[in-house]
């Protein structure tokens, strides 16, 4: 795409922002691509979610932001959103023609940083860079003030240190800061309030597997970042990395369960948790801005610094969410102070419970970290590399009272089963844990049981752990989907049908050639339509001769 800038020096962010657009509607894909190019962004389009994921995985730092439609054939847009948030930690904007509040809320809950309604105006796209910037700034909050300022200065001035011939990329801008931070804060104590900002860790499938194995080995009731780290034996990994990953994982799992809870549509309202979350007991170090009551964390075996965590949380773009997530992280058995945290945690996990009643006594505390454990397990089994953190389920209950309800915990595990029904797409279906969920009655031991229950699930689930395999599995699944449809091939039927209908031109013999739009990237026609064929159970080929496409032959010169 032409940039047409006279002076490269003056090209500052957000020019050249690398956007990945995912939409199964080819018309919208074309329009969005054009709009984004007009904004001087670098655009990549794809029409399948799995394709998008593989693109993102291939080039970990290849994109700055993802825009995705909510309804896509191969994967629910929300799931894609989760994956992206978890694996790549990129801002994701959702789009849909459906603007119902519940949908929008779901988007926010899943971590979307914005939700656009179609038809989309170009001016809405022009400003998407703010999400990228915001995320970076939030990531940078862990760093001491002057570093952040410096980073921002770079943004503002279009630093000289960048090659004139290149556009300023957000990654470049912040990579400088990252490097500096690592050098500077390498020796910082883990338990400090402001965590150091390390270079982003990419949780590969292998790494995640190690993580999961370590977690299992330790046992959910004892799991903590340090222990996990030790077991994983990955030299370059820090406890912070592990802690934030653990956090995400739990949230993802509990959110999954949450999906089954019809009441799980709350606004995160954790404003009250403004007490600074200092690392009082050394277990829980999160940036003070998170304001989560730290108290009673002594018993917690967790200890994580919030920096990565913050990043992820902030990716959600909601202050309240962040707080809530932080709260969840807390794992001490104490109720009083931890009630809020516990509450949050439990609310996530439970689905049958009304969130309003999060008041519980200490027992909750005892089990809440554990309650999530099975979820984690579940998740890891089915998609080891997909750790989702963006779940901001109902937090309203958190704001009230400080004790998590016993019953909240009690029901937490049950949610597993319902979840499976929630999954419409088999390929992204996390097999429901067969484990009985009622084991969670405040006893830690039950979690181990649940843990075990999940074991078989992993084998049962399609191993979507490896990226390539992922794609393969999905495609094989999609094929199955297609065969399940009643109409295997009704071309002829349709033709006859159409004639009767009278709505279509009768001159079927007129073969219309599909115009060459000059942008092959737009039409991922081959795979897309083949997929559609499988999906709808008929041969949807672009061969005009056997397919009444007169309708499309709009403009015959």
């Amino acid at each position, binding site marked *: 795409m032409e940039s047409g800038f006279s002076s490269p020096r003056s090209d500052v962010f957000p020019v050249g922002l690398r956007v990945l657009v995912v939409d199964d509607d080819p018309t919208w894909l074309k329009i969005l691509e054009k709009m984004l190019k007009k904004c001087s962004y670098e655009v990549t389009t794809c029409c399948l979610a799995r394709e998008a994921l593989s693109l993102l995985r291939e080039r970990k730092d290849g994109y700055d932001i993802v825009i995705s439609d909510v309804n896509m054939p191969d994967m629910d847009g929300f799931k894609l959103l989760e994956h992206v948030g978890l694996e790549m930690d990129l801002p994701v904007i959702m789009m849909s023609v459906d603007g119902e509040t519940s949908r929008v809320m779901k988007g926010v809950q899943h971590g979307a940083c914005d939700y656009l309604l179609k038809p989309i105006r170009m001016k809405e796209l022009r400003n998407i860079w703010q999400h990228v910037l915001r995320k970076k700034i939030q990531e940078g909050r862990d760093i001491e003030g002057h570093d952040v300022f410096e980073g921002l200065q770079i943004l503002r001035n279009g630093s000289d240190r960048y090659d004139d011939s290149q556009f300023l990329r957000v990654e470049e801008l912040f990579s400088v800061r990252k490097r500096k931070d690592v050098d500077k804060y390498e020796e910082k104590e883990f338990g400090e309030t402001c965590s150091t900002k390390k270079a982003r860790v990419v949780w590969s499938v292998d790494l995640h597997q190690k993580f999961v194995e370590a977690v299992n080995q330790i046992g959910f009731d004892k799991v903590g970042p340090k222990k996990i780290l030790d077991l994983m034996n990955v030299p370059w990994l820090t406890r912070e990395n592990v802690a934030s990953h653990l956090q995400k994982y739990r949230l993802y799992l509990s959110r999954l369960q949450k999906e089954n809870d019809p009441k799980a549509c709350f606004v995160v309202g954790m404003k009250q948790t403004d007490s600074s979350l200092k690392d009082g007991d050394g277990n829980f170090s999160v940036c003070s801005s998170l304001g989560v009551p730290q108290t009673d964390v002594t018993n917690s075996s967790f200890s994580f610094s919030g920096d990565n965590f913050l990043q992820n949380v902030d990716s959600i773009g909601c202050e309240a969410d962040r707080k809530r997530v932080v709260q969840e992280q807390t794992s001490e058995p104490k109720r009083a102070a931890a009630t809020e945290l516990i509450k949050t945690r439990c609310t996530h996990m439970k689905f049958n419970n009304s969130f309003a009643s999060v008041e519980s006594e200490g027992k909750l505390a005892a089990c809440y970290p554990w309650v999530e454990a099975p979820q984690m397990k579940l998740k890891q089994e089915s998609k080891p590399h997909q750790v989702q953190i963006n779940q901001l389920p109902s937090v309203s209950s958190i704001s009230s009272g400080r004790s998590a309800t016993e019953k909240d915990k009690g029901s937490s595990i049950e949610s597993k089963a319902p979840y499976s029904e929630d999954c419409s797409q088999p390929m992204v279906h996390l097999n429901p844990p067969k484990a009985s969920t009622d084991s969670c009655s405040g006893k830690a031991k039950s979690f181990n049981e649940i843990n075990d229950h999940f074991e078989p699930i992993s084998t049962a689930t399609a191993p979507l752990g490896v990226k390539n395999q992922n794609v393969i599995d999905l495609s094989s699944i999609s094929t199955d989907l297609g065969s399940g449809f009643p109409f295997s091939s009704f071309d002829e039927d349709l033709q006859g049908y159409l004639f009767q209908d009278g709505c279509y031109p009768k001159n079927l013999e007129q073969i219309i050639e599909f115009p060459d739009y000059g942008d092959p990237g737009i039409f991922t026609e081959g795979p897309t339509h083949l997929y559609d064929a499988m999906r*709808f159970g008929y041969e949807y080929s672009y061969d005009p001769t056997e397919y009444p496409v007169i309708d499309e032959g709009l403009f015959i*010169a």
Partner: protein
Amino acid sequence: MERNQLSRQINRMRQSLFDQGSLDEQFVQLELLQDETNPNFVEEVVTLCYRDSYRLILNLEQALQKSPLDFNQLDSYMQQFKGSSSSIGARKVKAQCTLFREYCKSGSGEGCFRTFQELKKERTALKNKFEAYFQLKRQAGPSQIASRPK
């Protein structure tokens, strides 16, 4: 001379599309996107939209033949179709889409059938108008500048 006449004709045609309520603001957005690098952008998009949405029409036809009707499925198809129609600013068609979805929600098969017929009529009518419009535009040649909204 002739060109001016042609231009006026094109403009009138275009304006009537808006006046009749067949098109909305989104179409203008498309026009704004058209430039030297994509001189036929609008026509390409409209063509693409009709082609792709045709598939959805077929799906809907099929689904409406089922007994009993699967309203969720119908709604899902229609949502896709609505999304597609919204891309070119097909206002009347979109309205039918919305109505159709309402009938899906209320489980009215009769309502769905009727609305679907209306929808197809609107769609075809718009298609014909587009054909005439773009044909004229092509006649006018590349020097024809896309009209700006008044």
